[in-house]
């Protein structure tokens, strides 16, 4: 590792870096940053940076509030848009006062889950489809105003949003975040950028970087980019579909040329694990009150726990791949939204899938019909379960889950439930405009 640190020290000198941002993520998935100057960098590598963890959401336990951030030199990247390229960033791992990996550090939680999968012989790969909105007004406290009126795949060459998206992609690529596709999404002002698959840890780091780059570049132009799951009533919400695969060394463990859809037994069991535990992990993959306004019938978001090959209403989809492209056999998990904490979301998804493999879960039959057309009775008759309908329901399902408790660890599990129950309570006691308009005149 020392070589990597040395490399970073050299790069800082050679590229005339003036500021190094040390990044980490709080339990809710917000990016946190401590900036240091190049002279402090060597000390940061040797000793780590101390700070008071009680100021960070989910880190706080007053009696053990001091934590230590150790920068991970393999994540050193220049931020080409910031301060004429003289600022760089590194992700940190957080340690407690006795120098043990800190239980409240989401990056540590993911590493633990990846290690567990690796002990079973698997490495976990993820490719997300990031959806978001660009709004015309740079001030988020104002009501969102649309920046364009385009629609799915629209080629709106001249508009601001397309330029912004193009520029964003170029910054992402310079930062080593390869983009697979990008296009105008279904709703006006809604855009999608798909990232190329990489190992889950790098991808979680990339998602954090992605959200920052998209927002900061928009802000520079007086616009506002939002990853809120459902910012506009009556329009599509923003999802973060995840394409998932496990590799055993060189080989895609999900691929079997002789199986239906080329999906191996391991792939089927992983998918079965996701289906069985989907309700328990939803609070993590969809963590806001607002998330559940996306997961409703009538839009391209899943509502029922089901799988299919070519049915976009399903929760899990098996994309059709070319038979000779063994590496691209994968499954797509469609409920997560881009407000989630990617470290925690990847952790619980992996844990659910691995449980399916471990227990040899049987995959239920494919749901081929468009299930958006069915009513609840019909679904129950078919033995299909709905995803949680609200944050509150999702928390109920999570609270009883040993799987999620183990995947997240006691510290984050307890804190998350407590924090989110409070969020739900705040929401529940709020009297909305809708209620006033609907009830005040007649009651």
């Amino acid at each position, binding site marked *: 590792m020392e070589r990597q640190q040395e490399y970073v020290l050299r790069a800082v000198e050679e590229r005339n870096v003036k500021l190094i941002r040390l990044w980490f993520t709080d339990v809710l998935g917000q990016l946190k940053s401590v900036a240091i100057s190049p002279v402090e960098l060597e000390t940061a590598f040797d000793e780590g940076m101390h700070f008071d963890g009680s100021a960070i959401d989910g880190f706080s336990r007053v009696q053990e509030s001091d934590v230590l951030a150790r920068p991970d030199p393999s994540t050193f990247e220049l931020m080409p848009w910031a301060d004429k390229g003289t600022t760089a960033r590194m992700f940190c791992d957080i340690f407690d006062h006795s120098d043990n990996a800190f239980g409240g550090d989401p990056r540590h939680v993911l590493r633990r889950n990846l290690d567990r999968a690796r002990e079973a012989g698997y490495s976990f*790969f993820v490719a997300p489809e990031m959806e978001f909105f660009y709004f015309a007004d740079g001030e988020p406290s104002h009501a969102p105003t649309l920046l364009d009126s385009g629609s799915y795949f629209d080629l709106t060459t001249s508009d601001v949003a397309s330029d912004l998206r193009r520029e964003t992609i170029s910054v992402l690529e310079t930062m080593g975040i390869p983009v697979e596709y990008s296009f105008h999404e279904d709703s006006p002002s809604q855009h999608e950028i798909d990232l190329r698959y990489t*190992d889950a840890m790098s991808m979680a780091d990339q998602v954090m970087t992605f959200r920052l780059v998209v927002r900061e570049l928009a802000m520079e132009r007086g616009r506002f980019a939002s990853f809120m799951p459902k910012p506009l009533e009556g329009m599509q919400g923003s999802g973060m579909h995840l394409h998932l695969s496990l590799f055993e060394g060189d080989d895609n463990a999900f691929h079997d040329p002789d199986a239906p859809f080329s999906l191996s037994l391991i792939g089927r069991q992983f998918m079965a694990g996701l289906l069985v535990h989907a309700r328990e992990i939803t609070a993590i993959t969809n963590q806001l009150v607002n998330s559940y306004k996306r997961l409703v019938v009538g839009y391209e978001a899943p509502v029922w726990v089901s799988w299919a090959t070519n049915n976009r209403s399903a929760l899990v989809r098996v994309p059709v791949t070319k038979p000779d492209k063994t590496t691209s056999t994968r499954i797509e998990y469609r409920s997560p939204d881009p407000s989630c904490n990617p470290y925690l979301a990847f952790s619980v998804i992996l844990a659910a899938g691995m449980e399916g493999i471990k227990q040899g879960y049987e995959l239920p039959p494919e749901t081929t019909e468009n299930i958006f057309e069915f009513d609840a009775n019909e679904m129950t008759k078919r033995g299909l379960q709905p995803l949680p309908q609200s944050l509150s329901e999702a928390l109920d399902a999570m609270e009883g889950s040993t799987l999620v408790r183990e995947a997240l660890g006691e510290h984050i599990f307890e804190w998350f439930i407590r924090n989110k129950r409070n969020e739900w309570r705040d929401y529940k006691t709020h009297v909305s405009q809708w209620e006033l308009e609907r009830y005040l005149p007649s009651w």
Partner: protein
Amino acid sequence: MSADETFLVFPDPAPPELVRCLEFGDYHWEPAPEINVLKNPETVASWTGAVVATDTTPEAAWALCTVLRRGDVPTEPLLVLIAPSQLEDLDTRSELFDDFLITPFHPRELEARIKQLLWRAGRGKRPELVTYGPIELNLETYQAVVDGRALDLTYMEYELLRFLAATPGRVFTRETLLNRVWGYEYYGGARTVDVHVRRLRAKLGEEHSHLIQTIRSVGYKLGQSRWKDERSGP
């Protein structure tokens, strides 16, 4: 690099830290053969030098140094890695080594000493620049440049590019790249290579991304061989 530019390393298996330093410095190395093999007059001894760690089996280590120095072509430079408690062993053996280094050693010191020894032996011709077409890598400063534009690479991206650019046209399997570039520290398995190649291509930009070519069901290569006659291929 030709076969006669190879360091002999003792013991076998070689200390991992030592291997990492040699590989990072792009020095080829191989484990020292059995002493009996070396003693055989038919063994042609022509190594760049030797690094002998005496700290685990001092008897065998010094016996090896003796053989290496007594041949028709004495192996030099010969660097000895020695534990502080064994320093006295040096007193009566000054003819058996050219320099020594106390273990545990600092990788940069090892690198510097090897470099100095080679210079003194008049063989310090290590290139400080690896270039291929628009790509230029400065091995001293870790700088990578394409078409005069500085590339900001992570350490592993830099190492991968340097490794590929050092032998243009040669096809490397993912396995080889993993072993040679990542060593045993890698995390994500063989897919790691693909992922890093993609990132490198993204950073090279559209215009130059084609320099790194995917050779279907084999691996990767960078550019074409400098030797026109040489067949490219695995």
